[in-house]
C-alpha cells in the first residue's frame, strides 16, 4: 500500500518536471503538486549510530515521516555556526511500523564528524522527506541497481522496495578495496555483486566496467538506477545510452535551503537549470547535460 502510493507520487512528480517545471526559456516554474510529499521539521532521536566500514556509518533515526527510495532529508548537525548549513543525506531504509528511518554516511568534514560523535538518545534537527526519488520502471524486465561508495544508501532503500515488490533486480556495489565493503546485513541480504578497483574482492574493476562485462541480452529491456560519484553516474549514463535502456541517476549539488527556495543547487539539463533538491535528486540520465 505504502509503496504503491509512493510510486504514483514519484511518477506524477517526474511528469511535473518535464512538462511543467521547465518552461521554454529554461527557467523554473515550479508548480506545487497535490501529490508532493509533505516535508516536516522534527527533532528526531538517534536510535543507533554505528560504524559499518572504515569510512561509513549507519544512523537510525526515530519518528520519521515516510520517505520513498531516493528521497533525502537535511540535518542541522550543531547549533554552532560551523558547520552552518544543513546537510543533505539520502534515506537508506524505512520501517513503516516503527517510523524508523536510516541513512548511511561518510565522515568527511565538520558536519559528518559531529554526526559520527553523536550517541543514541541524542536528538537531531531533521527536515524531510525532500525531493523526488527513483521511479520504478514498471515495464522493465529487470532492474539493475548500481551504487558507488557512499551512494549506497538510496540504492539499498530502492533494493528493499524492489524485493518487497517481488521484482527482479541485481545489486551492484563498487568501492576501492575489500576493506571498504560495509558490514551491514541489509546490504548482504541483497546478494550484491561487489566490484573493487584493486580486485581484492568480487569483480576486479569499477561498476561501469562490470556493467560493460554483461552480455547485451542480459541488459535488454533492463532499467538502471544509480547513485555515486559523478564519473560513475556519467559512465552508467553512457552505458545505458549505448544499450538503449533507461537510467535514473541521483545527483549531488551543494544545497542551501533543500526545499527549492534558493536556486542554489541547480544541475544543467538539456532544458535549462533544474533544482536538485526539488526536481531531483533523481533524474532520467538523458536529461542531464553531462560535463
Amino acid at each position, binding site marked *: 500500500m505504502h509503496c504503491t502510493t509512493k510510486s504514483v507520487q514519484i511518477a506524477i512528480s517526474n511528469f511535473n518536471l518535464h512538462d511543467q517545471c521547465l518552461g521554454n526559456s529554461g527557467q523554473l516554474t515550479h508548480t506545487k503538486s497535490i501529490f508532493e510529499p509533505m516535508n516536516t521539521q522534527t527533532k528526531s532521536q538517534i536510535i543507533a549510530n554505528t560504524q559499518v566500514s572504515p569510512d561509513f556509518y549507519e544512523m537510525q533515526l526515530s519518528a520519521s515521516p515516510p520517505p520513498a527510495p531516493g528521497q533525502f532529508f537535511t540535518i542541522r548537525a550543531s547549533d554552532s555556526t*560551523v558547520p552552518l548549513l544543513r546537510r543533505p543525506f539520502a534515506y537508506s531504509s524505512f520501517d513503516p511500523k516503527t517510523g524508523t528511518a536510516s541513512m548511511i554516511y561518510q565522515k568527511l568534514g565538520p558536519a559528518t564528524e559531529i554526526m559520527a560523535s553523536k550517541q543514541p538518545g541524542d536528538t537531531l534537527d531533521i527536515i524531510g522527506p525532500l525531493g523526488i526519488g527513483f521511479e520504478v520502471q514498471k515495464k522493465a524486465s529487470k532492474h539493475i541497481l548500481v551504487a558507488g561508495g557512499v551512494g549506497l544508501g538510496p540504492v539499498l532503500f530502492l533494493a528493499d522496495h524492489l524485493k518487497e515488490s517481488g521484482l527482479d533486480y541485481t545489486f551492484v556495489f563498487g568501492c576501492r578495496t575489500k576493506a571498504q565493503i560495509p558490514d551491514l546485513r541489509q546490504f548482504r541480504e541483497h546478494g550484491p555483486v561487489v566490484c573493487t578497483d584493486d580486485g581484492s574482492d568480487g569483480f576486479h574493476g569499477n561498476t561501469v566496467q562490470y556493467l560493460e562485462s554483461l552480455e547485451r541480452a542480459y541488459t535488454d529491456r533492463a532499467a538502471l538506477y544509480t547513485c555515486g560519484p559523478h564519473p560513475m553516474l556519467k559512465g552508467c549514463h553512457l552505458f545505458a545510452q549505448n544499450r538503449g535502456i533507461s537510467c535514473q541517476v541521483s545527483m549531488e*549539488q551543494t544545497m542551501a535551503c533543500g526545499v527549492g527556495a534558493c536556486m542554489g*543547487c541547480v544541475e544543467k539539463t538539456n532544458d535549462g537549470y533544474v533544482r536538485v533538491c526539488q526536481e531531483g535528486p533523481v533524474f532520467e540520465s538523458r536529461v542531464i547535460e553531462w560535463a
Partner: protein
Amino acid sequence: MGNKHQSIDMSVKIGSCTLPTPVGVASGTFGYGSEYESLVDFSALGAIFTKAVTLKPRPGNEMPRIIETPSGILNSIGLANVGVDQFVSEKMPYLRELPCAIIPNIAGSTEEEYIAVLERLEKCEGIVAYEINISCPNVKHGGIAFGTDCPQVETLTSKLKSISTRPLIIKLTPNVTDITVVARAAEQGGADAISCINTLVGMVIDTNKRRPVLPAGTGGLSGPAVRPVAVAMTYRVARAVSIPVIGIGGIMNTDDALQFMMAGACAIQVGTGVFVDPSIPQSIAHGLQNFCGSHDLGDVSEISKLLPG
C-alpha cells in the same frame, strides 16, 4: 504574562504600510513562499521579501552557486527568477493569500528595467511595498552597481517613487566607503525606508582545481560572519536618516535581532538563518514579544529607543 503579551503592539509601520511583526524573511532566501509552506508559521512573519523580480525570466549563474565559508555562505545565484509576468500570474495568487505582508524585491540592470517591473507590479493586488535591490550593476553606467553611486541612487529612487503608489524600501549594498551618504541619497530621492544590508563581495578559491569555486569568480557573503558589519552599518544608517531602517545580516536568534533593533532598526530580516533553521523567524517573533513583555514595552518599536545616542 500571557495577558501582558497580548497587549503588546508587534506591528511596525513602513511608510504607509504596516507589517504585522518586525520579523521578515530576506529576499532570495524564501523563494516565493510556498517552498516553506509546511515548515513556517506564516502568521508569525512580518513580511516575505520575495526573490528578486526582474523584467525577463533569468536562468541564473553556472553552478556551483553556493559554498560555505567560516560562519557564512557565499552565493552566486545570479538573480535566477521567473520574471515579473510569471511572478504576477503564478506566484502572487499564492502569496497574497498569506497572512503576512508581501514585498517583492525588484532588480534590474537599467533604470528602465526597474521602472518596467514596478509598473507591472503596480497593477497587481496584494503587494504592500517594494524593496529595491540596488546592488545590481548598471549596464549603462560601466557596470558599476547603482548602490555605490549617490547620484544614481537618488535618481533611481525618485523616478520609482514618482510612479509608485506603494512605499519604496531601498536595499543598500555594504560594499561602499560610506553607507550613510548612500542612505541619505535614497532618503533624498523619496525612499520610505532603508533595508540594510545586502551581501558583501567575497571569493573562495579551490586550491586543488586552481580556480575560484564560483564560476562567476566572486559571490555574495552572508550569514553570522557578516553580522558585526551589518550591525555597524545599521547603527550608522539609523543615525543618518529619519526614515525607518530594516536590519539584515546574519540574524540567527532573538539576541541578534535585538542587536539590530537597538542599533536603530524598526524591523529585521532573516536570510541565511532560514536555510539553517526555518523556524528561526517565528522564534524571533516570539522572542521579541517576550522581550517586550519582560521589559514593560507596550510597542515593539520601543526597542530601537533603548540604546542611548
